[in-house]
């Protein structure tokens, strides 16, 4: 349609040079280097646009000018491939249309994105792409959100010139595991998935074989793609070649209601979009946020009692168990939101108890790092700040499983800069190379003493970073390690703690933990040694059954009814994270507010409301009736809890003082020589939601145990011609 409108007024046809006759501003300079400038200015469709000089592609300049450039292979967060040729534009005095993704933006050039030449070029490209693309949009899962479908509405021909007797190219489907469904006939070989696997996920097995028409995407040998980020290739695929297996043929995009929320599967606080239909959550999509998760998420798909009596039973339970003071214990689990933590802490404190435990090993003791100084337990360098580091020491952590999105940032930095990484702890595949220093406190002592090549590199680094895993505090030698690290950081504060940089970062793996520390949800020393008689499990599903005294009255509040529920005398049904609009604090201390996508089923309620109701039955009602006054209370506790989306830094002086308190608290720690173990052995089932998921059970079988997960298309040997 567009072509008909624009053709008469122009002479431009493919192969002809369109020259609008703009003079070339004087003589060309002979010098090979011009004066270095920060920005360059060029003209796109008659509109002047200024872009940074350093490494700007022409397509970015066009976008900045508001021109829409169709593309398949170009992606903002992947290396440029330049192989789909869809982004062709016309550049003045260029003999041919130019692929705008592979062309750097040049100062003073005149670019046209909407001329007959451009249209004809793109139509040609589209015709070739469609020559071998099946016409199965009605049964394709990508239908409705397919780049090829959309762009063919504009650039596709309405009739075919394809008359091959042999028919369209047929490609065998690949088995990429329980998350990704393949339909390789639809592949247009944009290689986004390959580049993602190469660069972001660090899976170099996914690649291409063959040339031209015979090019195929695959794993070379028959195996599944083992990466915690593999689900992202579903979003990257511009056509329906890679689609989601759990979501396959469940819904169309136009039926879905999107709600923007926060992921709670790890402590990164990835921004997500929850797509729901009716009362069901259908899928989880990433949401772009450069500050947190860029555009990736760890894909773990979601699978989807009278109140007065229950609350009265609890009140009676407290009375009959005879629990007073510190004998009343509350345990905060992995998926407890900040509001409910605040309400529960207030309630327990009102009952005269300080016994606030966390659902982890050593969780019922006061934490080693204390909670008085924020920088002692937060990821101080911030997540985008990881890319600035030039030497990283990982202590007792495997970021690939504890915060996969953060790990991809380390990999990105490792690929593009001369970043050096060292690891103390259990050996693991991190998707980037590292110097292995050892598994225990001795390796840490050697590093601190400056022995080894990595210690020297770390010393020379301008922005060194120590990432301490949250599991370090749970290790037998955790206290000693904290002591050594705190002293080391304090000693090297010139490079590690400066006004611009804080190189001591604790990486949490549990969504609720930073918030719990922030509000001081930790026991006092005296309370920690008290035997509880009444235990309130708030979403706590990891508790060791042996740690619960036999005569204790146990209340469980949660949503998936996992281990915690089986221990309980009373179960209170609460809302899952997609069912409540709550505050989450991520490992950087960034508070973000989630959003309810679907209402909670049946009688279940938001967690804090349950606790508020219980407080009334117990005779000491909490002084907030709605979520806004509860957030006022949170403001009183710590203003950062309601300053959404920003990270507040700790000043260097306070950070150093915090480290001194760590060193003082752990001064008597003994070294036992036991190795630091990683906390997550099965990445795919770390919480009650993923344990209830069939898909995650299949992932566990396929990736962790290496079994056949039961859904692979066996018998179809991948034939790479």
């Amino acid at each position, binding site marked *: 349609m567009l072509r008909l409108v624009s053709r008469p007024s122009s002479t431009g046809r493919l192969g002809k040079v369109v020259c609008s006759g703009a003079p070339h501003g004087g003589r060309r300079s002979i010098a090979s280097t011009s004066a270095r400038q920060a920005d360059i200015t060029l003209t796109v469709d008659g509109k002047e646009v200024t872009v940074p000089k350093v490494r700007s592609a022409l397509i970015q300049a066009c976008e900045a000018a508001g021109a829409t450039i169709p593309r398949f292979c170009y992606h903002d967060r992947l290396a440029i491939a330049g192989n789909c040729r869809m982004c062709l534009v016309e550049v003045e005095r260029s003999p041919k249309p130019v692929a705008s993704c592979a062309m750097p933006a040049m100062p003073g050039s005149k670019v046209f994105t909407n001329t007959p030449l451009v249209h004809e070029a793109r139509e040609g490209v589209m015709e070739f792409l469609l020559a071998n693309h099946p016409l199965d949009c009605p049964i394709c899962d990508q239908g409705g959100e*397919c*780049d090829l479908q959309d762009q063919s509405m504009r650039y596709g021909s309405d009739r075919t010139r394809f008359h091959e007797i042999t028919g369209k190219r047929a490609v065998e489907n690949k088995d990429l595991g329980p998350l990704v469904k393949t339909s390789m006939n639809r592949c247009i070989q944009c290689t986004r998935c390959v580049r993602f696997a190469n660069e972001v996920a660090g899976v170099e097995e996914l690649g291409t074989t063959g040339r031209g028409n015979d090019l195929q995407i695959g794993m070379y040998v028959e195996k599944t793609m083992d990466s915690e980020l593999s689900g992202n290739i579903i979003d990257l695929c511009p056509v329906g070649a890679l689609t989601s297996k759990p979501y396959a043929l469940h819904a169309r995009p136009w039926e879905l209601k999107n709600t923007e929320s926060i992921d709670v599967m790890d402590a990164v606080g990835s921004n997500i979009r929850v797509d729901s239909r009716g009362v069901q959550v259908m899928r989880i999509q990433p949401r772009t946020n450069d500050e947190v998760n860029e*555009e990736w998420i760890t894909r773990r798909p979601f699978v989807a009692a009278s109140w007065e009596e229950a609350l009265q039973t609890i009140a009676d339970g407290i009375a009959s168990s005879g629990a007073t003071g510190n004998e009343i214990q509350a345990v905060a689990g992995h998926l407890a939101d900040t509001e409910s933590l605040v309400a529960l802490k207030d309630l327990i404190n009102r009952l005269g108890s300080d016994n606030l435990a966390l659902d982890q090993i050593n969780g019922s003791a006061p934490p080693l790092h204390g909670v008085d100084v924020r920088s002692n337990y937060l990821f101080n360098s911030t997540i985008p700040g990881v890319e600035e580091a030039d030497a990283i020491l990982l202590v007792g952590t495997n970021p690939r499983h504890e915060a996969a999105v953060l790990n991809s940032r380390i990999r990105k930095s490792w690929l593009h800069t001369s970043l050096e990484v060292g690891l103390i702890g259990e050996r693991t595949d991190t998707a980037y190379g590292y110097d292995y220093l050892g598994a225990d406190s001795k390796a840490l002592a050697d590093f601190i003493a400056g022995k080894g090549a990595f210690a020297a590199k770390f010393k020379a680094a301008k922005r060194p970073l120590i990432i301490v895993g949250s599991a370090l505090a749970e290790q037998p030698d955790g206290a000693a390690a904290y002591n050594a690290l705190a002293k080391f950081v304090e000693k090297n504060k010139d490079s590690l703690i400066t006004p611009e940089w804080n190189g001591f970062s604790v990486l949490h793996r549990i969504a609720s933990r930073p918030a719990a520390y922030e509000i001081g949800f930790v026991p006092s020393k005296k309370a920690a040694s008290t035997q509880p008689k009444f235990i309130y499990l708030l979403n706590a599903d990891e508790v060791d059954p042996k740690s619960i005294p036999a005569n204790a009255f146990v209340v469980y509040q949660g949503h998936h009814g996992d281990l915690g529920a089986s221990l309980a005398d009373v179960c209170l049904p609460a809302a899952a994270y997609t069912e409540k609009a709550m505050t989450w604090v991520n490992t950087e201390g960034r508070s973000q507010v989630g959003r309810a996508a679907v209402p909670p089923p049946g009688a279940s309620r938001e967690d804090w409301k349950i606790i508020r109701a219980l407080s009334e039955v117990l005779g000491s009602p909490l002084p907030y009736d709605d979520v806004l006054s509860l957030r006022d209370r949170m403001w009183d506790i710590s203003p950062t809890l*309601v300053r959404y989306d920003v990270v507040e830094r700790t000043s260097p002086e306070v950070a150093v003082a915090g480290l001194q308190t760590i060193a003082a608290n752990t001064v008597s720690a003994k070294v036992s020589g036991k190795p630091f173990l990683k906390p997550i052995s099965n990445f795919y089932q770390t919480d009650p939601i993923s344990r209830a998921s069939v898909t995650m059970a299949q992932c566990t079988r396929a990736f962790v145990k290496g079994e056949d997960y039961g859904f692979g298309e066996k018998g179809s040997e991948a034939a790479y011609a």
Partner: protein
Amino acid sequence: MSLLRSSKQAIFRWPLPACPTYTRRFSAETHNQPVRTGDAPQKETAQIAEVADTDVLTAEVISGAPVELRHRMVRIYQPARNTMQSGAGKSERWRIDWDVLLGAGRWENPLMGWASSADYMQGTRMSFRSKEDAMHFAEKQGWNYYVQPPPTKKIPPKNYSENFVYRPNTLRIMRTK
């Protein structure tokens, strides 16, 4: 109540000079969410100017809209770009919509299995050209609102020649493309 007051300031900063004809009612009984504008003014309460409590008729008074609507906060935000597609259309708009009603706001119809809802706002969402337009509309209607700041976008440096840059150290990436 420091939070509430600073939020008031955050809201009032904008509308007064631009739209002198109306004022948002903020009496003690109306609660509102912390509104974050770009630079989050979280100063001492002493510096906050008291806002004149003039009575301006909001639409809800005569529009016949149910009273319950006044108690539901709307969210004003820029919807994120769909990661499934490369197009950025509609991502510049600002949207107003409502949080879902908790407690039986939605159920599966026993006859057909379709989703039923008691929430008359569940299907409503409105698009505006700018944040100010959306806030203006919400204020005219008498709705409490929460403005979610859009995430800062970074434009990553891109260059085709990056693929072929020589790196002196050990090879860190194997390209299988």
